[in-house]
């Protein structure tokens, strides 16, 4: 029997290959560097950053490429490249904010950075999945790494709880995902997304197997878990609270964007022909996700939990754009590009907010109560200022990235004719303003407790954390003040796919 290996071009795989190699190098460097007496292993973080920067460069070389190597199992195209930027930005910011946090919690080890790099690979596979099998592998690589990272503080019961909850529910969600994929395979005879789209186009109108609908429902559950959509969000607050803060930041940005990348690939592109059948489910989930996330965020006294619920609410806004990514002409293009832009913008201001939470920690104590922020405006004016900026952006007030993100999402929803959903979303953003601005009020208008005033004297930043904060501020302002460049890029990315 003669075997013909698939033709492939390693250049297309360069970003993924660089990530894996960097991950392995970091792991080995830790093992062989252990003999050194110094004990400071922050060089592992810088090594990871170097790898991420190289990946960034390799990814930028892929702009304009449209290829489906390995028999269409991968889809390297503009949308994948755009999402890769989002993932890389989130991973870089997380690595930067991990250096001081990791030193305080003695978790600056090779495994920590190696797992972050491997999970970035998982995200890339989800965004570049031309086949449900590739997407599934990406989900699994991502999830396995995240379970371990959530439980990285092994000595803390909360971290153990986070990892356990995340693992059990995540494994359950994986079952749904796989079950859904097998139904789709049964209904269309293929796991390849392009072939699936072609099959639906060729199928006579309204005459597709009922299996397809079961499969779509199960996929919505599986991916809904990944993007913390209500009612699959139950794990979010506990996991986000218990995980190390740097990992909480990571969870809320990259992996969620990856979940949306997979949703876009499967629903907005492959199953676009069935938009009339699936938008209803997403409509309901989007409305529930926004409303529940915002309302529950109001009552939180722990900033990590508050940001967890806030991230649920923001997932709802992205789902609004997903609902709008099909149906009438041009809606697909606008809807998907809004998803792209929103995930990019959200990465910057959300990670920025988490970087401030990391900066608040002292010793092996994280100050995560909202009360800890009282009087921050006088104790650490710069930190309070950037936190205020991120809160304003999360609330969606101009001139920040958050405002532009919400604007394009609402515009795409209106364009596709989803007026009521847009109204719900707008009402929700009004509710959200309350709890974001409350953080600002606490920082500037409330007297800190006496012992905290004494602490202020010794406040210091680590260099890498400052860089992370500056990058997040720049991203938030750049996308807020000059959004046209990024909006154009997002639109062109989608256009390249639709041809």
């Amino acid at each position: 029997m003669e075997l013909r290996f698939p033709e492939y071009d390693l250049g297309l795989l360069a970003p993924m290959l660089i990530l894996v190699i960097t991950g392995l190098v970091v792991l080995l460097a830790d093992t062989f560097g252990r003999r050194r007496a110094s004990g400071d292993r922050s060089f592992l973080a810088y090594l990871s950053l170097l790898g991420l920067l190289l990946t960034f460069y390799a990814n930028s070389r892929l702009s304009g490429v449209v290829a489906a190597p390995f028999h269409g199992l991968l889809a390297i195209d503009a949308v994948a490249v755009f999402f890769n930027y989002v993932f890389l930005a989130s991973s870089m910011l997380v690595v930067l904010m991990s250096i001081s946090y990791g030193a305080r919690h003695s978790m600056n080890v090779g495994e920590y950075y190696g797992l972050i790099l491997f999970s970035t690979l998982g995200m890339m596979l989800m965004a570049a999945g031309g086949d449900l099998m590739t997407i599934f592998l990406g989900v699994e690589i991502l999830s396995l790494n995240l379970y371990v990272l959530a439980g990285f503080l092994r000595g803390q019961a909360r971290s153990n709880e986070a990892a356990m909850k995340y693992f059990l529910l995540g494994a359950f969600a994986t079952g749904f995902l796989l079950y859904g994929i097998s139904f789709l395979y049964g209904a269309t005879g293929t796991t390849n997304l392009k072939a699936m789209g072609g099959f639906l186009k060729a199928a006579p109108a309204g005459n597709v197997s009922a299996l397809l609908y079961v499969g779509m429902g199960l996929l919505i559950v599986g991916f809904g878990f990944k993007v913390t959509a209500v009612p699959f969000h139950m794990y979010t607050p506990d996991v986000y609270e218990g995980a190390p803060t740097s990992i909480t930041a990571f969870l809320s940005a990259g992996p969620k964007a990856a979940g949306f990348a997979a949703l876009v690939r499967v629903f907005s592109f492959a199953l676009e022909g069935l938009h009339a059948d699936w938008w209803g489910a997403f409509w309901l989930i989007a409305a529930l996700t926004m409303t529940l996330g915002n309302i529950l965020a109001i009552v939180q006294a722990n900033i990590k939990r508050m940001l967890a619920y806030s991230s649920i609410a923001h997932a709802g806004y992205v789902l609004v754009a997903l609902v709008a990514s099909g149906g009438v002409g041009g809606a697909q293009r606008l809807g998907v590009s809004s998803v792209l832009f929103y995930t990019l913008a959200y990465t910057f201001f959300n990670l920025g907010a988490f970087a401030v939470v990391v900066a608040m920690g002292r010793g092996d104590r994280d100050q995560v109560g909202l009360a800890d922020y009282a009087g921050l405006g006088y104790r650490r004016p710069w930190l309070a200022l950037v936190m205020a900026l991120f809160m304003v952006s999360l609330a969606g007030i101009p001139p920040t990235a958050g405002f532009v993100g919400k604007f394009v999402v609402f515009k795409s929803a209106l364009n596709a004719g989803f007026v009521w959903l847009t109204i719900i979303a707008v009402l929700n953003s009004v509710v959200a303003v309350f709890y974001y601005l409350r953080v600002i009020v606490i920082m500037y208008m409330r007297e800190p407790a006496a012992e905290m005033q004494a602490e202020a004297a010794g406040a210091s930043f680590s260099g890498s954390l400052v860089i992370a904060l500056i990058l997040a501020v720049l991203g938030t302002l750049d996308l807020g003040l000059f959004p046209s460049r990024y909006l154009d890029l997002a639109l062109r990315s989608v256009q390249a796919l639709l041809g």
Partner: protein
Amino acid sequence: MDLSFLFFYLFAAVAVGAALVVVLNRNILHCAMALVLMFFAIAALFLMLGAEFIAAVQVLVYAGAIMVLFLFVILLIQIDRVQMLRFAHRQSPLVVIIAVLLLAELLYMIIRGTLGIAPGGADAAAAGAASGSTEAFGALLYTTYLFPFEVASVLLLAAMIGAILLARLDKEEVGGVSRQDMS
């Protein structure tokens, strides 16, 4: 033809029956053994479909490796205490209602005959022609599906690292209490 039909229902009934025992039985050891039986019944179904490789993997990996691991875990933690937990037996009515609704929906579609199975793409045809033999399976794995096959290695590596990381004892933890616990 008739005989294979008979065997199909036999194995299917065994699989469903064993699965019910897994869920309903209160003795966790009996559950585990019923699970083995179910894996064998499923493997027989695969065999009847001409998928010898998957049938073998089903027995080797699931009934063999994974179940042995399950049994080890059950024997390492004392069974008496596990039996006391019984947390899985108390379901909220809502869960039952949703499960029954889902089952009714699926049954309805099966009975109505709207569960059309697509004729299958080129891959399925190729696999079908070789009737799922190990050789055809291997050829597909190393050609068409080379990429996922390779990427799975990263998955396994990450799983290994994670397992070691979470399970190993640090020097400071050997005493049973970690530094963070005490603070």
